[in-house]
């Protein structure tokens, strides 16, 4: 038998899962070397969505960088904004008022639910279970409607501001959110009924994409990728920010580090997010939503008077608007627990109103780098499962 195998000449097939492909969740390009159905080597190519956000940030004031951060992980905008605002607040030494902190926590957790819903829907869709997609997007529509009610935008919100949030939430929002949290646990059960104990689902996710705890730590994984392998590290518990220190929640941790464990982690996180939102709604303190020292964005009177705003006047005045006696000079790394993992902002300031350097530590960037390791030696169909489990958004990966 071995002799016959040697005489059989086979060639490897190089397959390009191009930037445009239904399953690559954005413009990710994978070059796969296949031996039959087995992947011998997998090379990811990223950078198709590189927009130079870090370079742009060096030329805008701190407040003007905020809309850029919306577009990082474009399906979890509130957390990106909250992370950036937190970093700038820590750098400037401003503290957001309590109500703003609670609102930011609520919004972040709603975003976590929304992002995990997209993950679940697309992951199941790729593996063939189409119905989960349509059931779960019902809930997401509800959440996006609530976002729109508050700040006018469903996706690119720019709602958390440096020093708090842009405006207060309405009674209607709170009622709508309360009703959502009442119903959501039952909906999660519904999704789980469809796939959780299904034999085909288990066969396609158990034992696939296994990552041990040491490997996960060594490769810089974060979020459910790390927790699925058994390492209990959640930035919300380690370095509590906003209102996370005041609420009770558990951090689900997996055991084996395979696709199924990460799936269970994220499903459990949906429930915990619901719990956090409920507690925040109950404890929401009254008060202002923007700190007094927050950088102001009023359009100066002269610019507003003109029919066509004079852009040069606008730029000059924004940078003069708040004379900080100190935009302090220094550097700061501030991380939050985004739905995808640990999102970090490293800001270096030289005393100007524009950041000298803004570095975005994106979890998706690190997670895509582990794809070659996860896919090598496994079947083509597992590549799809692996792409789904790392839960990447290319906007964040490429910045």
């Amino acid at each position, binding site marked *: 038998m071995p002799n016959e195998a040697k005489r059989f000449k086979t060639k490897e097939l190089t397959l390009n899962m191009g930037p445009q492909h239904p399953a690559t969740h954005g413009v990710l390009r994978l070059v796969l070397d296949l031996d039959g159905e087995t992947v011998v080597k997998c090379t990811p190519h990223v950078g198709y969505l590189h927009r130079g956000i870090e*370079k742009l940030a060096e030329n805008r004031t701190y407040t003007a960088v905020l809309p850029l951060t919306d577009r990082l992980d474009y399906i979890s905008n509130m957390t990106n904004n909250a992370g950036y605002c937190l970093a700038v607040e820590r750098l400037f030494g401003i503290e957001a008022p309590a109500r703003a902190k609670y609102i930011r926590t609520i919004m972040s957790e709603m975003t976590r639910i929304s992002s995990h819903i997209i993950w679940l829907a697309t992951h199941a869709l790729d593996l063939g279970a189409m119905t989960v997609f349509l059931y779960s997007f019902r809930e997401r529509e509800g959440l996006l409607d609530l976002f729109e009610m508050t700040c006018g935008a469903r996706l690119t919100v720019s709602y958390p501001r440096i020093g708090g949030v842009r405006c207060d939430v309405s009674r209607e929002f709170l009622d709508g959110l309360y009703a959502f949290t009442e119903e959501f646990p039952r909906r999660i059960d519904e999704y789980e009924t469809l796939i959780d104990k299904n034999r085909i689902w288990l066969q396609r996710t158990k034992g696939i994409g296994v990552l041990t705890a040491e490997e996960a730590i060594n490769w810089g994984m974060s979020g459910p990728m790390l927790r699925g392998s058994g390492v209990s590290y959640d930035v919300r518990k380690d370095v509590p920010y906003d209102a996370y220190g005041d609420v009770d929640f558990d951090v689900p941790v997996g055991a084996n580090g395979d696709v199924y464990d990460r799936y269970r982690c994220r499903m459990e996180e949906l429930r915990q997010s619901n719990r956090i939102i409920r507690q925040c709604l109950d404890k929401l303190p009254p008060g202002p939503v923007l700190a007094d020292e927050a950088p102001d964005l009023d359009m100066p009177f002269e610019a507003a008077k003109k029919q066509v705003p004079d852009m040069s006047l606008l730029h000059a005045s924004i940078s003069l608007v708040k004379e900080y006696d100190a935009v302090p000079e220094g*550097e700061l790394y501030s991380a939050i627990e985004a739905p995808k993992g640990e999102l970090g902002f490293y800001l270096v300031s030289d005393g100007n109103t524009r950041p000298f350097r803004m570095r975005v530590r994106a979890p998706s960037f*690190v997670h895509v780098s582990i794809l070659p390791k996860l896919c090598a030696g496994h079947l083509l169909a597992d590549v799809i499962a692996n792409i789904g489990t790392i839960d990447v958004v290319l906007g964040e990966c490429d*910045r």
Partner: protein
Amino acid sequence: MEPKQIASRLQRAFSADVEKIREFRGQTTVTIGKRRSREILGHLAAWPEFSFDYLEDLCGMDYLGKKEPRFEVVYHLHSLKHRHTIRIRVPVSEDDCAIDSVVDIWAGADWHERECYDLFGITFVGHPDLRRILMPEDWQGYPLRKDYPVQSDLGEREWPGFTDVVKTAEENSRYEVR
């Protein structure tokens, strides 16, 4: 351990190489020399009192005109065992724009170093596969350097991929229905 303690411990162990320690908003930065940077980072990962097993971030900095050496590579290290953090900066001069790679200590440094090379032009000696990651493979120049323009009006130096697309669009426009 508190960041200040880590910094002072480092200074005692490697006094010749620790150039500066700075503290700001509760976070400590230690600047060490390039010569033994890889060795010191390895010790930070391996010594049980430090155990920095998690590389949070690795990025580059460009201080054109502000200070010499021009570049710096910044490492953010975190220990999951002891739950402490430190920031290490290693200056890299423009003439000798290379530094030892730490891929064998933390595998996650792989793509961070590629990005640093891509956007700043800092070569990482010992990296298994140093090539551009975010920009196209045949891009000229290092975009995140301070002397690289924000708005691209590169004229002659424009990326051939873009000029090809513009040319093809002009050729195909003769098929347009007017």
